[in-house]
């Protein structure tokens, strides 16, 4: 007889689990993390000054990047030590068996500020984290639009303007990669596949806890003179920059580590932790999108980290990999950056598509049309994304004879993207469409992404690219794909999943006001920007042609309306969660998918009492003889109001 494994591990888990040791403010939490991070920063900064204080370029410029970089590095170590995340790795060094037990969570809100192993808590942490990051970067976007109200009169200084532009771009591009994976991937995937846990809960938690420090470091750049090199930070401009560039490097790099941790966990979870009967063709489309996303991240993010590392060395150790006169090349950064950077934009699109394909069948009461096409579309996007990076460099003069090839690969991307449209259109065909708030957002994704996708054809066509490259046309194009795509999907998913995640209902009427105001102002903001770009306005400028003022003013005013719409969301969303707190009803959208069939909303700590045995796919809405998705015992199945653990 084998040794009883579970008992063995429980006996070994007496200490080191966050949330169970320590008392009051000394128990590991965001507070101890911040304090330890601060101490780490001071230590690293002191060490950097000791090492590099005498370097000639440090004396000349009065700027010690070594001190800043070491400060950040030790701040990260301190942060994780303070959070208690290093206790377990140290325990492992002492040879304790892996600890699979999850400590019982205490009621109350403190657990949301701690490093925990519960994927649902991580999901909620991510949800609110992402909202904070998104709205910070969104406010910066309004600052950009304010400057562009006038072609000549300046609200910000030209350097402050570029700091704001770089900060907005970087924060959006790096943080929003996790906007679906973080909150909904982590929360829903184990529930969807019928698992009680994830493969690497500590990696998953670490992936979240990288983001607040990455956010703080990145935002701190603004207070140190920022970086005026945009989110692409082309060398040698980025080598020239002040210490704000170090914040960019660390902010982006930590986010890269977060992506690696999150994707490792989600890939291993989907592959290994599926419940019995959850075959590959019963997996939710969301699962397929998370798989494509995870593999893409794993294979692209290390290259970003390489690029950032090369830049760090050029800025601190005075290597010359990106500086031509010493045997380097500025093309090297462009290649390393875009080899990550292009998959990156699909990292944003794929989870959006996954969310859309997941939610549409629920409100169409039909099986998803072309299940395999849908999965193939996402995998196709993921694979192709690695072969298109040079289309960002059509005008760089680098490998000019390769342009036809990259034009071809780029346009091939339209095929898997087309699959996603085919799936959506086929699913709506002869459906019973309920125009609920989540459904409206998903239809909004299709509407917006169409503009983004079709203008992608312009951008990828080299002769047209000569005119539109680096202009507001490109800017409008990717805002349509990213904001019009994944951000709309994100908000739709918030409306869809809030009852499950929090146990509270959201008001449909308010949701509809939010949707329509956001949809209209979003299009009113970005549609004119295609014209602005075609008429010759380059990106990232603080001065532009007088004749473009009317269009720019229209855009700026629309962007304020968009800001108001999002403010409306924040206020109503928090109001309903904090003040009114209407309890959710069971399975409000009538979904077959497993995540809704749990004992209570929010789901209990261990998700399912028994292992669900999956008997059918999640989308058999129109098959009257279909079995339920899983053989599962649900408590309170007959009760409408299911919220537990909170005071209504």
């Amino acid at each position, binding site marked *: 007889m084998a040794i009883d494994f579970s008992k063995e591990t429980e006996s070994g888990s007496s200490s080191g689990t966050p949330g169970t040791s320590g008392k009051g403010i000394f128990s590991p939490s965001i507070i101890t993390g911040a304090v330890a991070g601060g101490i780490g920063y001071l230590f690293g900064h002191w060490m950097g000054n000791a090492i590099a204080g005498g370097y000639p370029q440090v004396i000349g410029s009065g700027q010690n990047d070594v001190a800043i970089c070491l400060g950040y590095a030790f701040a990260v170590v301190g942060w994780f030590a303070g959070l208690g995340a290093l206790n377990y790795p140290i325990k492992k060094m002492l040879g304790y068996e892996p600890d699979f037990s999850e400590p019982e969570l205490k009621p109350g809100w403190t657990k949301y500020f701690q490093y925990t192993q519960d994927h649902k808590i991580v999901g909620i942490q991510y949800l609110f984290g992402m909202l904070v990051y998104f709205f910070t970067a969104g406010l910066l976007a309004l600052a950009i639009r304010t400057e562009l109200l006038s072609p000549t009169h300046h609200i910000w200084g030209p350097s402050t303007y570029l700091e704001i532009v770089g900060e907005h771009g970087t924060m959006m591009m790096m943080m929003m990669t996790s906007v679906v994976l973080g909150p909904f991937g982590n929360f829903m995937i184990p529930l969807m596949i019928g698992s009680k846990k994830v493969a690497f809960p500590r990696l998953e938690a670490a992936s979240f806890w990288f983001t607040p420090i990455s956010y703080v470091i990145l935002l701190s750049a603004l207070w140190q003179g920022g970086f005026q090199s945009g989110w692409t930070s082309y060398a040698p401009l980025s080598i020239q920059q002040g210490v704000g560039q170090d914040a960019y490097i660390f902010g982006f790099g930590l986010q890269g580590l977060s992506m690696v941790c999150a994707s490792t966990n989600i890939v291993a979870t989907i592959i290994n932790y599926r419940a019995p009967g959850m075959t590959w063709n019963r997996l939710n489309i969301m699962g397929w999108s998370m798989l494509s996303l995870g593999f893409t991240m794993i294979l692209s993010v290390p290259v970003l980290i390489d690029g950032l590392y090369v830049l760090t060395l050029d800025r601190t150790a005075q290597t*010359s990999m990106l500086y031509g006169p*010493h045997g380097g090349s500025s093309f090297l950064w462009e290649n390393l950056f875009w080899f990550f950077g292009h998959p990156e934009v699909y990292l944003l699109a794929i989870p959006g598509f996954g969310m859309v394909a997941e939610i549409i069948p629920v409100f169409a009461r039909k099986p998803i049309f072309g299940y395999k096409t849908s999965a193939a579309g996402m995998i196709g996007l993921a694979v192709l994304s690695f072969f298109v990076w040079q289309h960002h460099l059509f005008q760089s003069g680098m490998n000019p004879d390769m342009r036809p090839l990259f034009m071809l690969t780029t346009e091939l991307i339209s095929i898997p993207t087309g699959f996603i449209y085919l799936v959506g*259109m086929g699913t709506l065909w002869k459906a019973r469409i309920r125009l609920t708030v989540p459904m409206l957002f998903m239809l909004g994704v299709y509407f917006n992404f169409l503009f983004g996708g079709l203008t992608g054809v312009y951008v990828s066509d080299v002769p047209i690219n000569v005119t539109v490259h680096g202009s507001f046309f490109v800017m409008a194009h990717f805002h349509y794909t990213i904001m019009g795509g994944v951000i709309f999907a994100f908000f739709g998913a918030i409306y869809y999943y809030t009852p499950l995640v929090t146990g509270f209902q959201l008001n449909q009427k308010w949701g509809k006001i939010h949707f329509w105001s956001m949809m209209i102002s979003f299009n009113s903001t970005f549609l004119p920007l295609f014209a602005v770009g075609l008429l010759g306005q380059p990106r990232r400028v603080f001065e532009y042609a007088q004749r473009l003022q009317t269009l720019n003013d229209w855009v700026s005013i629309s962007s304020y309306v968009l800001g108001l719409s999002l403010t409306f969301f924040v206020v109503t969303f928090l109001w309903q969660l904090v003040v009114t707190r209407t309890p959710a009803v069971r399975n409000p959208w009538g979904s077959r998918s497993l995540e809704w069939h749990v004992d209570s909303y929010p789901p209990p700590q261990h998700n399912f009492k028994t292992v669900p045995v999956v008997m059918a796919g999640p989308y058999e809405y129109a098959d009257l003889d279909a079995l339920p998705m899983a053989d599962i015992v649900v408590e309170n199945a007959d009760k409408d109001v299911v919220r537990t653990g909170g005071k209504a």
Partner: protein
Amino acid sequence: MANFVLDESRSEESTKGHLTKILVIWAITSVIGMALVWFVLGPHLPPGTMTDQAQGAQFDIRLVSTLVVPVLFFVWLFFGYSIMKWRVRPGEDPLAPGANISGNSKAQGAWYIITTTLVLGLAAFGTYFLVVPAGAGGAEGSSPIWRPATKNILQVQVIAQQWRFTYRWPQFGGMETTSLELPNNTEIQFNVTSLDVIHDFWAYGLGVKADANPDYNNIAYAKTQQTGKFVVRCDELCGIWHGAMYNYGHVVSQAQFQTWASNMETQNAALTKLLPKYSLTYTPSYSGAGGGYYNTATDPNANL
């Protein structure tokens, strides 16, 4: 679960009626839309017709915009029709099933074939219009493979630096000017380089764009065919004054250009003597213009 009966419009047999309706409306609106884009919007599309390359780009934008119309309309119509026709109306059971269709090999096959054909067609079209007009005004690197047929080419070196463009004329004694005048009906080769960070030379009206990379000569061609004024902007973020890094150029008649060029040559004679020898790239001197970032002890040129 109660048994639901599918209503008429959702039964699987009645496909043709709906599809025909959609297709008819689509065909009519698309033809009108395409005609409007091609004939009404088309001639006004940027970047104009000042050069052969700009005209080519305008044609491309016009054609792609026209082709986009039917795609846009088809998706809109399909979504619009479905939502209008098959949405749940008040009083209906919201959870009643739709038609049990989880795929349709004909529709899917047709979709794959049509999108693939469109995409491959567009790529072939783009390649043709890249190769034929000598690189379409885009950046062609230091050794272009798609060049104009004529040997009679005006050389203009575009020197970008933080934060202005200057222009050097090897065929006019290597003089350097801050203004840009070009002769009409002439094949022009822009040799774009940078003295510091990456910039981008975007001569909007000429349909020319090429990154200005340090230590690299990036070539773009344009053949002027119309006189007028055009704006030159920096199109790659280059630091604080990126937004203010622009100037205006003119395409003038060949005679006017000759006058301008010889005037400039005389005016700048003393300055031209001070300039470094004309070269395709200019490396900063180690001690001064390099900014003293790299330690002089590491100067690789010192021990060569």
